[in-house]
């Protein structure tokens, strides 16, 4: 072997540590945690290494590894990264590394918890680095399925208040319980993956030659009618995971019920899988359809932005606010991609990254607040800033990034998307996008102000709450640092991404 299979190391290191945890760390919680840190640390180092050594001049797919799995069907393990997937892998590493620290205090069945989490992460890495559609689909399922157990076992249930016109139905389905959330999320995502599978198989059949390789499929120019419906299938399939309206409702329930690290990983990375799928597979393989359907993708993106922000404003549960803000921000991602402009697409990818970090930060913080105050009811909490200044500061920074304040990563992403929107064929997209950013500032700061700033609460439950401590600082510190670093020096991220979006767009809209 002439060089290290770095992508495979990155992908499988968490899986290996999951195995170690399952077989060698029974009833040794500290060993479980340090094994997880080691496994994700290896991935983190590998992804940073990949990111730094990625050759920006040469661009294209690099670090390629390939071996055949099922030759008769042309299925092979084909891993390679371009600028976009390198950034996404980096995001995954950062989030999971922080997530391991953020769930340090998990008490119940921590061995299985960490093992499942790490398996899930392997799936996520796999989706980002693999270029064989069949294997990509397998990894996608690996990334989705452990979620059911993670939420169903370690999740938390909220108050169930079924009422209103469909109250009977909500009572019947058990709205608010963690089992409901886990089931809803899983069903939604599997529903989506059915569409994806159909799309992948349709392309496989349409090529005539036996291959699932993205690189080879990319050379094809499929029939426009086929492209059209396959693109829609991919859009719906991956889009569900990206939380497109009106198929987003799994996200608030799922994120609210999930344990901290799972929420972080899910909102931070898994939703990006959806957007990444639309961009990589949908737009990458079906250029004509991507152009034809841009109006739909972008318009739904706009709906997501405004609708998500307004819904977030209406929530009283902290986790729901964050979850709906994810819906809103994923709208920016989809909108940026739909603009089909270099800036918009750069903004879209950057927003995936920025939103991943910031929503990871948010969920880590919500988890901490919940752990200390045992409440997620925004309007019952007040004045926590004096007791937990560190958490308050981190939350405010996350909030500022969320509303697109400059010097945080959120601004760069939104700004690029705005530029893209105004140079696209549908200029009016700019306005919902900007309004969404404004609405975000209203609900985020309102929540931050209510919980952390203002007079100290008189409630006896909320006295003498501790600030974050020990490993929790590691999680917060990493995420805040990244958020600010990429906001101040966005070219770190935009540089490699730009080398990948350019060729993609040239395929889409021609020279």
């Amino acid at each position: 072997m002439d060089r290290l299979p770095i992508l495979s190391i990155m992908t499988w290191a968490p899986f290996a540590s999951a195995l170690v945890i399952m077989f060698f760390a029974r009833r040794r919680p500290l060993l479980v945690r340090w094994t997880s840190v080691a496994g994700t640390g290896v991935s983190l180092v590998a992804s940073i290494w990949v990111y730094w050594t990625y050759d920006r001049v040469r661009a294209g797919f690099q670090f390629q590894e390939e071996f055949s799995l099922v030759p008769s069907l042309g299925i092979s393990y084909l891993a390679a990264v371009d600028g976009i997937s390198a950034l996404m892998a980096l995001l995954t590493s950062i989030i999971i590394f922080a997530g391991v620290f953020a769930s340090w205090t998990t008490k119940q069945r921590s061995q299985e918890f960490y093992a499942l989490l790490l398996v899930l992460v392997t799936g996520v890495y796999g989706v980002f680095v693999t270029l064989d559609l069949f294997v990509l689909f397998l990894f996608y399922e690996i990334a989705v399925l452990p979620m059911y157990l993670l939420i169903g076992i370690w999740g938390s249930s909220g108050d169930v208040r079924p009422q209103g016109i469909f109250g009977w139905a909500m009572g019947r389905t058990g709205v608010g319980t963690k089992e409901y959330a886990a089931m809803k999320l899983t069903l939604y995502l599997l529903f989506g993956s059915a569409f994806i599978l159909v799309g992948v198989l349709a392309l496989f059949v349409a090529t005539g030659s036996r291959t699932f390789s993205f690189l080879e499929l990319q050379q094809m120019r499929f029939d426009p009618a086929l492209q059209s419906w396959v693109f829609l299938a991919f859009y719906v399939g991956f889009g569900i995971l990206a939380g497109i309206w009106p198929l987003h409702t799994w996200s608030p329930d799922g994120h609210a019920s999930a344990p901290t690290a799972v929420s972080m990983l899910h909102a931070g990375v898994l939703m990006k899988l959806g957007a990444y799928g639309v961009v990589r597979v949908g737009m990458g393989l079906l250029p004509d359809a991507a152009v034809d359907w841009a109006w739909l993708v972008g318009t739904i993106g706009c709906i997501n932005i405004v609708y998500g922000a307004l819904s977030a404003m209406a929530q009283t549960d902290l986790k729901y606010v964050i979850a709906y803000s994810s819906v809103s921000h994923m709208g920016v991602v989809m909108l940026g991609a739909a603009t089909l402009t270099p800036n918009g697409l750069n903004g879209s990818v950057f927003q995936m990254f920025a939103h991943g970090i910031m929503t990871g930060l948010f969920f880590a913080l919500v988890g901490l607040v919940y752990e200390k105050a045992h409440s997620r009811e925004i309007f019952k909490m007040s004045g926590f800033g004096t007791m937990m200044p560190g958490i308050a500061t981190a939350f405010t920074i996350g909030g500022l990034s969320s509303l697109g304040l400059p010097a945080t990563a959120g601004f760069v992403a939104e700004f690029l998307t705005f530029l893209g929107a105004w140079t696209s064929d549908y200029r009016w997209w700019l306005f919902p996008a900007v309004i969404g950013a404004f609405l975000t500032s209203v609900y985020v700061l309102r929540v931050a102000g209510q919980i952390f700033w203002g007079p100290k609460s008189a409630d006896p439950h909320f006295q003498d709450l501790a600030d974050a401590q020990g490993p929790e600082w590691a999680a917060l510190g990493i995420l805040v640092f990244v958020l600010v670093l990429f906001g101040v020096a966005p070219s770190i991220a935009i540089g490699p991404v730009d080398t990948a979006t350019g060729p993609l767009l040239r395929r889409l809209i021609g020279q």
Partner: protein
Amino acid sequence: MMAGDGTLALAALLLHATAFLVLAIAAPLRRLGRPAAYVSILCAAGSLAAAVLSWRAHTGEAISRLVWTWLPSEGQTLATVGVLADADSTVMLTLVALVALLVQVYSLGYLSDERAPSLGRYYAYQSLFAFSMMGLVLAPNFVQLFICWELVGLCSYLLIGFWYERPAAARAALKAFWITKTGDVGLLIGIVLIWRHTGTFDLTEMRVLAGNGAIPLAGLSVMTFCIYLGAVGKSAQFPLHIWLPDAMEGPTPVSALIHAATMVTAGVYLLHRTDWLFALTPDVLAIVVWVGAFTALLSAVLACVQNDIKRVLAYSTISQLSYMMAAIGAGFSGAGFLHLLTHGVFKALLFLGAGAIIHAVHSNDLPDMGRLARRMPQTAIVFTVGALSLAGLPLFAGFLSKEEILGAVLAGGFAAPFAMLVLVAFLTAFYMFRVVFLAFFAAPPAGHAGAAAASGAPHVADASHHASHGAAAHEPHEPPSSMLLPLWVLALLSVATGVFFTVVHPEPEFESPAWLMPVGVGSAVAGILLAWATYQRRAIDAASLAAAFGPIYRGALARFWIDAVFERAYRLALLGFSRLVGWIDRYLVDGVLNVLSAWTVQAGDDLRTMQTGRVQDYVYGIAVGLLVLLLWVQFN
């Protein structure tokens, strides 16, 4: 030449950034309080020296520009960061550096009771603010300008809410952020639009295009109007002026720096900086004049009825900003910019003076003061200097710049706004000297508690913070030297610039009629006299004076209901609408889904009775299935 290439300006900028980074990262240092303050002040002093040198190096037409790529796109540079140092930006830089340094020194005394970690946090915010403001001033392009624009807004939010345990402060911080953000939405849209229109963010390149007539005029008005919206929010123009009075919940030095001298003038500075662009759209400029004149009048009227000394100054700031806006709208942005500079000096002086008073009497309310001149003569002197400057009397700082503005608006052909501004000049002198007389010279009213309550103006501000230290009953006294020193520096500067401009009249860009100066000075003197007669001599009864302006007086007490309208819009329109959307999401979008799944569950319940659990029933089923299958195969 070292100083001429922008390096010094950059150094001024980076010194504050260094201070901020040190304080932000080195948490133990920050928590020490005073040492953190010294670090910050040291950097601020260095920054001032660099700024002054840079200013001296950029007189006349000298321009230097340093840029680095910030954001790439398609292998090219999309946006840059750097510094653009020229005569305007370096003099503004000097103003910022000066006021920032003085305020930081002043804060040492003013916040001496603050807990050490809070003090460290305060200085970190101060450094961040100074850095961002300088970045804004030196911005070579719209992107950096917007970035810093937002950052100063952030610092304003953080510093207004510095005493965040107080609900009023927390609320005011939010209000300030949201209202200015409303304007920023316009600015951002404007920047995006103008980028598409001209193909660049860079001010220098855009100016060249504008000079060549290479910017198409179609649609340009919309863009400049959007940019102007940003200025409306930041520089507190009607109807987005409502945040500034509430911003007085912050510590007084903050009000002096951010909400008087520097940040709020960013909008004016922006319009001045891009006056060549606005010159292409006279229709927008007309809006600027009219809104400016109207806001000036509105806020001057409001200033007359305030009992909170800081609110008087806040409304006066709005009024003066509108003055500058009017001049820029009339097409003579130089006049507005000059007023910006002089106003920065004397309004900082007034705020810091007011801070000294509050520090001494532990109250913001005028009725709690009176005859303070005996106890604190130095403060009385410098405050009066500030008031005279604001009134625009000769030999004081505001004199020339105010005349210039009046002349500019007249020369621009705006007669009605001109008349409004003259009225404002009168009102300005009146309300300012109302404060001077009530605070320093007149006897305090007998039952002043009742008077304060009757005024109806909210008067919760940092006085209550000071009062909380339990020293409410002690005698007012002169502030410590760390506070007096900045006051004297600013007072001397006010007089010095005033004398300088009275003697050395600069070449005006326009012809002013000879009667202009007597009218301007006359209205100011009339205002002072009316204040003297009413509040010092009590020859005119203040209550009957108020009664003479019945509806206006009552309207002014209610702040002309503008705040209430915004409050309603927020509560009913925004929150109400969001609840509607939230309901739709939960009960329609998700509800339909739940109905579907409830049906599925129900169907399962109904169908499961088919499962008898008896093995032979299943065999029977299999056999029947086999039968059907065979039938289908054979007879199809």
